[in-house]
């Protein structure tokens, strides 16, 4: 059975169709032309997209090679062997153990420098001797003292490997051009001769730069490390998670399930979205005014840093949590309510576990963002020179990106490679956090 189609009839009557009047060849031609045009456009779009991605990857590769080529040499540290006889009488107490008081008063640096100069008996005169001293790290004495206090048996050893100064380190790594006129070089001609002598005696070596991973900041690049900054960052992030995660999840649940629809709720919602895009320095100012100014909390403390960054990440996590709660089908909640669960039970025991992977992903991304933040920390005094590794959340501390910022602003050339290495470490942390987010999503995500 068939019905006449009234519309077709009307159309045919009113509108003349040019394609219908064409011959089959003409029609084919027209189609192929327009088809070609569409294909060409598609190709252009594809090429433009490809070009954009290539450009982005190109920049990334340039950036990474630059960071890597500047930074990998910081994994090694030059050392020089010096014959040192530690005068036991001046360090040991009556009981034969190390007397900390005496050890503290003893001029360790003088001992190291004097022993080093003993290897060059021909060098006389104040300025030559000073130039000779400059080849050895200013911290060599302190590090020798620490090593001996830790392992008193070393006191009988007659030769020690101690760190060279950063200038020698830079020279041995080929970062000082010896072709420049002497006046413009940090290493002078006479120093080059001495370094050559040391090299011939096999008294110079490069070892893995453990100090970089076991020390906090130092003014001497050869003893500067990132441990303090990593511990500081870990404390800050811990505080951030403790504060931001529960608050954000509670806020999201309230807004999704309990908030009465109305102007106030809309207002709160708009504000949360706005807060997510507020520049981070503003949160730093808030922290300075409220936490430091009003509550008199300590300056430079990871506790305050964590609280400020928690405020900053709060909106991100709220938005992610709300999205993942909404992604859970209403049937789950309806079923829970249907069998007599309370609204709280339905939200906490049924919806939340299913939304957890999404919440975690959002949290990790928010936290990764907080890990890379320096601006708010400037205001609360966490951008500072701090030598001691923090042991509690109220101790002064820096964070990893702050350490990079401080080193990159230091005059000494050797800090340049160290900041590049620190950037690599920060990137490794960021990449692993993002990978964890991807993994959690893949592993626990439920499809409906």
């Amino acid at each position: 059975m068939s019905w006449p189609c009234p519309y077709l009839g009307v159309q045919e009557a009113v509108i003349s169709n040019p394609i219908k009047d064409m011959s089959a060849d003409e029609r084919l031609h027209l189609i192929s032309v327009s088809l070609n045009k569409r294909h060409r456009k598609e190709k252009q779009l594809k090429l433009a997209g490809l070009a954009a991605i290539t450009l982005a990857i190109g920049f990334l590769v340039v950036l990474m090679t630059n960071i890597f080529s500047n930074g990998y040499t910081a994994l090694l540290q030059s050392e020089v062997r010096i014959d040192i006889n530690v005068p036991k009488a001046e360090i040991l107490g009556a009981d034969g153990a190390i007397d900390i008081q005496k050890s503290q008063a003893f001029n360790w640096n003088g001992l190291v420098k004097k022993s080093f100069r003993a290897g060059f008996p021909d060098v006389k005169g104040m300025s030559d001797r000073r130039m000779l001293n400059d080849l050895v790290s200013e911290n060599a004495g302190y590090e020798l003292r620490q090593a001996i206090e830790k392992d008193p048996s070393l006191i009988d050893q007659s030769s020690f490997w101690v760190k060279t100064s950063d200038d020698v380190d830079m020279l041995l790594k080929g970062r000082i051009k010896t072709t420049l006129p002497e006046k413009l070089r940090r290493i002078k001609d006479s120093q080059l001769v001495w370094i050559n002598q040391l090299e011939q005696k096999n008294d110079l070596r490069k070892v893995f730069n453990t100090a970089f991973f076991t020390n906090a900041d130092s003014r001497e690049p050869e003893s500067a490390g990132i441990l303090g900054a990593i511990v500081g960052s870990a404390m800050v992030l811990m505080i951030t998670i403790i504060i931001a995660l529960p608050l954000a999840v509670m806020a999201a649940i309230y807004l999704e399930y309990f908030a009465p629809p109305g102007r106030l709720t809309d207002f709160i919602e708009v504000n949360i979205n706005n807060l997510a895009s507020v520049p981070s320095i503003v949160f730093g100012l808030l922290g300075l005014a409220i936490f430091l100014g009003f509550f008199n909390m300590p300056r430079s403390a990871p506790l305050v840093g964590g609280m400020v960054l928690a405020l900053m990440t709060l909106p991100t996590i709220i938005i992610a949590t709300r999205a993942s709660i909404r992604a859970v089908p209403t049937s789950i909640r309806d079923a829970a309510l249907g069998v007599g669960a309370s609204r709280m039970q339905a939200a906490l025991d049924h919806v939340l576990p299913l939304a957890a992977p999404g919440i975690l992903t959002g949290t990790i991304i928010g936290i990764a963002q907080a890990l890379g933040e320096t601006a708010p920390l400037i205001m609360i005094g966490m951008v500072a020179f701090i030598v001691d590794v923090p042991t509690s959340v109220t101790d002064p501390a820096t964070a990893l990106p702050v350490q990079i910022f401080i080193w990159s602003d230091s005059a000494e050339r050797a800090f340049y490679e160290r900041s590049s290495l620190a950037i690599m470490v920060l990137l490794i942390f960021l990449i692993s956090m993002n990978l964890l987010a991807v993994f959690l999503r893949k592993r626990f995500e439920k499809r409906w």
Partner: protein
Amino acid sequence: MRFSYFIAGLALSSSLAGLAHARDQISIVGSSTVYPFATIVAEKFGQTSGFKTPVVESTGTGGGMKLFCGGIGVQYPDITNASRAIKPKEADNCAANGVEFIEIIAGNDGLAFSNSLEAEALNLSVSHIATALAAELPAGGMTNNKDAEYQPNALTTWAEVDQFVTAMGGSKANLPAKPISIMVPPPTSGTRDALGALFVEPGLEVIGLQASEELREDGRVIEMGENDSLIIEKLVADPSMFGVFGYSFLEQNRDKVQASVVNGVELNFENIASYDYPGARPLFFYIKSAHIGVIPGMKDFIEEFVSEKAMGLDGYLFPAGLVPLTDEETASQIAKISDN
């Protein structure tokens, strides 16, 4: 329920916040020019004194003064570094908050007016630097009439600057016909204040113009952050640019940048010590009197800073670029401390 743990954690962290804390390390803020020296002393002090290592922040001189003068108590810093003397306004603020302080001169520094080693070294006068930087000049600098109306600086090349300075009765420096582009520190920086006080104002006065610290804002003077390394990087990348920073940065980067000779005086340590170099200036730090004896190690730290082994000619601050005081000056600094 798991949420009770979260709430417990929250309560715990807020109770921590309420804890009044006793600070057992010195807190130092202030100038980014003094920062490298203060950190060296701090580290040495931490290694040898048995006290905790002081915490040093680089906030700029102005920022440091604001924090320092905020009040008395552990939440306020104990010492602020300054690359210029305290301003009357800042001293008033200190007084209003009951902060009494001792001023110590840590040593001398010189403003380097530098460009890349690859470019030609300039030999100019403070008037050249001043006219290149000034916001307004008679007829914008396009006249030889001193009394012409002051208009925004229209000089675009160093040769024009030279021509204008000569027309005003200054010395000729044979500057190249290269565009003017100068990087300066931000207004919060003491180095910026020193630039105004040592180069711009006297430079304009010498050739009989109205003294002003205002710098031009037409893009030829570029304001940088408190980051001298960045200025060095930019100078290397663009040999036509100039930058203003402290002597210690010049010392560490002699293989990249060179300082211009100003008023016929080379920038080196002797000329800073003798104050022959027009950009020579003292560096300060200010100590909160009320905190001495309250914060552990305050007195010891200050004594370490002004000691011969730190500030002296053979001291460890000299290789870092701090030009030592004369013996009498050092003695008077030590006297200021022992009075308290």
